[in-house]
């Protein structure tokens, strides 16, 4: 490969990542690279390690070995993979907006309070500025009238859209989605995917773990198929979904179709 055109800067890079839970070797050397504006989708069966891989990027899981860099900055790790510098991890996490399968909105705070919590208290954004930004984001995800509501009184789809707005309110460099629609009733999946699609369209960098194959094919710029902790196949979505090479991926796509 030639390095001719200036590539867009690297947002997330994972090299040779290993992760074991006790004797259970979940990730056996996986790598990932997302440049600014890339949408990387990670697919795979249950237990393939896709969520673990995503959660290692912001150190919600501690890798066993490997290298991770965010925005070109290497995460300082001890030989056992644990982070060397808590402050660095906290700073890098602030640049990664995480969206969870189970939303995880803070139940004791209203939707608006959820959105401004980290901007105001951690990032020290002036409160009125954070509120203005939060309202804009809520309008964008279609929840303008819900800013005073408590999460428990909203539908799953509404909660997940609020959770996406909460992550965006930190103005992150990249977004991480961990199966964002898996806990939703089928009729609520569409509204959440529509919001995520909007983010992809505006050129946001995203890493997305998903079971929605059609969606992955439409929004991703690069797809990684994980099997048993290894990357079985990866490439552009049309190639991966249209002409899979590996027998396992063919089987997998057939089983989820």
């Amino acid at each position, binding site marked *: 490969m030639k390095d001719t055109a200036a590539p867009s800067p690297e947002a997330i890079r994972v090299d040779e990542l290993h992760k074991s839970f006790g004797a259970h070797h979940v990730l056996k050397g996986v790598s990932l690279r997302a440049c600014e504006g890339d949408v990387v989708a990670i697919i795979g069966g249950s237990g393939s390690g896709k969520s673990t891989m995503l959660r290692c990027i*912001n150190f*919600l899981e501690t890798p066993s070995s490997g290298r991770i860099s965010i925005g070109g900055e290497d995460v300082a790790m001890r030989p056992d993979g644990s982070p060397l510098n*808590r402050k660095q*991890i*906290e*700073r*890098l*996490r*602030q640049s*990664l*907006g*995480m969206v*969870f399968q*189970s*939303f*995880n*909105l*803070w*139940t*004791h*705070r*209203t939707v608006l309070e959820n959105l401004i*919590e*980290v901007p105001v*208290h*951690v990032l020290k954004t002036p409160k009125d500025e954070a509120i203005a930004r939060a309202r804009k984001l809520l309008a964008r995800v279609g929840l303008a009238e819900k800013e005073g509501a*408590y*999460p*428990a*009184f909203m539908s799953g789809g509404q909660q997940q859209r609020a959770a996406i707005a909460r*992550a965006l309110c*930190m103005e992150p460099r990249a977004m991480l989605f961990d199966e964002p629609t898996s806990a939703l009733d089928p009729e609520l999946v569409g509204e959440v995917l529509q919001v995520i699609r909007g983010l992809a369209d505006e050129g946001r960098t995203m890493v997305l773990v998903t079971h929605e194959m059609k969606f992955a094919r439409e929004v991703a710029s690069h797809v990684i198929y994980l099997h048993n902790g290894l990357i079985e196949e990866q490439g552009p979505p049309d190639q991966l979904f249209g002409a899979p090479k590996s027998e396992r991926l063919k089987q997998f796509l057939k089983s989820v179709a």
Partner: protein
Amino acid sequence: MSGLELLAWEAPGWGAALAAGLLKSVLIALGAFSLGLLIGIGGAYGKLYGGPVTRDLLAVYTTIVRAVPELILILILYFAFTSSINNLLLAWGFERIQISGFVAGIAVLGVVQGAYATEVLRGAILSVPAGQIEAARAMGMPPLMLAWRVTFPQMLAAAIPGLANLWLIATKDTALLAVVGYAELTLVTRQAASTTKAFFTFFMAAGLLYLCISILSTLIFGRIEAWARRGQVRQEGR
């Protein structure tokens, strides 16, 4: 003298003396409850996240304090507390001091409360869903802020009923300080009763005063609990 005359505010009535005893009881209970809460927060975090030595020491503390009758603990702690402080002072070349019953009472009851509060708060912290904490970690919130802004308010709803119990126990345990000669409500009541021989009147009066504290406390804790449960879907009859 009639019962009401005995309870009159001005001497020869005992009203003012009883009120002073009540005030001391409430202040000691407040102090002991607050101290117990501080010990409990430290103890709960130590038990959950501390190293093996911390955990063992805390286990010894909560086991012993909760196993031994409070009356005995108060006698032991009160005399041990005051004499060890004086021994320390003497060893450092200071004069022996008279430790006020008020301070000693708060310290002693606070240590007892702390053991129970440790367990109440430990359970409450465990009841906070992991996802609530994970969301804050994922956004880069530092640990102390996370404890204060996420874990603490989240566990409050689960902790309030247990803490309300502890507060009521604190108000009543102040009566045990009568055995070490501290003039709180129960001791004053006993003095009044034995001086006037109107046992029934005075002990009924004291009982009513304790009842008033407890009713008022229940109302206040009810308010706090309703506030702590904001944002939760009401689940009645479960």
